[in-house]
């Protein structure tokens, strides 16, 4: 036989033998998987965003069925999804609180100072790496949209030089939280309406110098908020575990950085 025939037969034979062995093994040795896992995977939105803390929807479905996870961790699916899965598995559906991302900075280009003209790559990390960013405030939003580019639902827009999250679209996957080089984005309950939109830990005069809407650490809001706003150094921080409804905090804030946003819409329920 010539070498071409021999090699063809040889490789073909090896391939056939391996394929046969694999087929037999798959048939007689495969481990039956719980069929509910597939069903639950189909019930989940399939966004594979990882917001639940598992590697994709299938992995989360496995954790739910095996009882390692609650069925209310899926933010994109929302309460409807949690209830459907709970009904399917015959479990009680735990209450689910919708969360949304928020950018804790309101120093847009009309209020906050830009101390340099940045002409580099349109990316917050790149801007931050270039002499600490062009913004006067070293805590404020740079506005080059790194958060918006990782958002799977396009919920983040740059408005007048700072990032804004559309509450109605946000699925709380947490990708923007990780993308922001200045760690300005937080996941907060969607029901919360009053926020301190500033992250500057500088003292009052230093904040005033670079931004017209920064927290100056005056503590007026902490007295009005009944424990729902606490001081972290020279910065007022909302404690979202406590209800904050006193709208006087918004009116009395001398830095104009406490803002109330529109009532939360709940597209999932």
């Amino acid at each position: 036989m010539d070498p071409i025939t021999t090699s063809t037969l040889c490789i073909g034979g090896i391939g056939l033998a391996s394929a046969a062995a694999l087929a037999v093994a798959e048939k007689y040795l495969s481990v039956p998987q719980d069929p509910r896992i597939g069903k639950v995977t189909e019930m989940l939105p399939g966004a594979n965003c990882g917001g639940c803390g598992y590697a994709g929807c299938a992995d989360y479905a496995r954790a739910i069925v095996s009882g390692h996870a609650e069925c209310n961790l899926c933010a994109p699916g929302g309460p409807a999804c949690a209830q459907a899965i709970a009904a399917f598995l015959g479990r009680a559906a735990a209450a689910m609180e919708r969360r949304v991302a928020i950018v804790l900075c309101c120093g847009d280009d009309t209020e906050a100072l830009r101390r340099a003209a940045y002409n580099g790559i349109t990316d917050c990390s790149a801007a931050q790496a270039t002499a600490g960013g062009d913004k006067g405030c070293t805590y404020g939003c740079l506005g080059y949209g790194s958060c918006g580019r990782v958002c799977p639902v396009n919920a983040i827009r740059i408005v007048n030089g700072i990032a804004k999250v559309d509450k109605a679209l946000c699925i709380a996957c947490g990708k923007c939280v990780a993308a922001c080089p200045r760690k300005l984005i937080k996941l907060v309950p969607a029901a919360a309406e009053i926020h301190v939109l500033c992250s500057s830990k500088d003292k009052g005069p230093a904040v005033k110098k670079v931004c017209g809407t920064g927290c100056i650490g005056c503590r007026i809001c902490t007295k009005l908020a009944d424990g729902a706003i606490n001081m972290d150094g020279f910065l007022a921080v909302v404690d979202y575990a406590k209800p904050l409804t006193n709208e006087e905090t918004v009116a009395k804030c001398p830095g104009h950085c406490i803002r109330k946003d529109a009532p939360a819409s709940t597209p999932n329920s």
Partner: protein
Amino acid sequence: MEYLLLIISAILVNNFVLSRFLGICPFLGVSKKISTALGMSGAVVFVITIASAVTWCLQTYLLVPLGLDKFLQTLSFILVIAALVQLIDIVMKRFAPPLHAALGIFLPLITTNCAVLGVAVLNMKEGYGFFKSVLFGFAAALGFALALLIFTGLREKIERAAPPRCFKGVAISLVTAGLLSLAFMGFSGLVK
């Protein structure tokens, strides 16, 4: 003595990653956490040892008698190793679930890695016997595991350190890998 020299040579002197530069992909890819590096090391030791045994049999009983060993080695080795790892994956899932949970995701990743193929081809080039082939494969895999674990330990430390900004991330990792390789060069000459 001969076997001892073979082992030392495969682990330290001719370390697969740091001297022969095989298996760089998992070396850089799964060296962020000690736990994943351990899983990968286990999978590599497992696959390479078995692959050396199987490829030796394939070479001796099929390729050489048919006179195909000059040009069909790479293709047939890859085919057999890939099928074998799939088979082990299925069998392991059935009979040893804890082991499968520990090595499972790394097995398919390492299947057609150049380190695995490298061991098989080197075995044939050196003309080792069956036992020597398996021993060499096992030792080479241990060398890979050693390099991977050392590198992962270094990377975990570097993660917490504050290198200059331009060095952060992959850059400092590559520099570290280079230095580690230089350090292993110090073993050369220990065994001929």
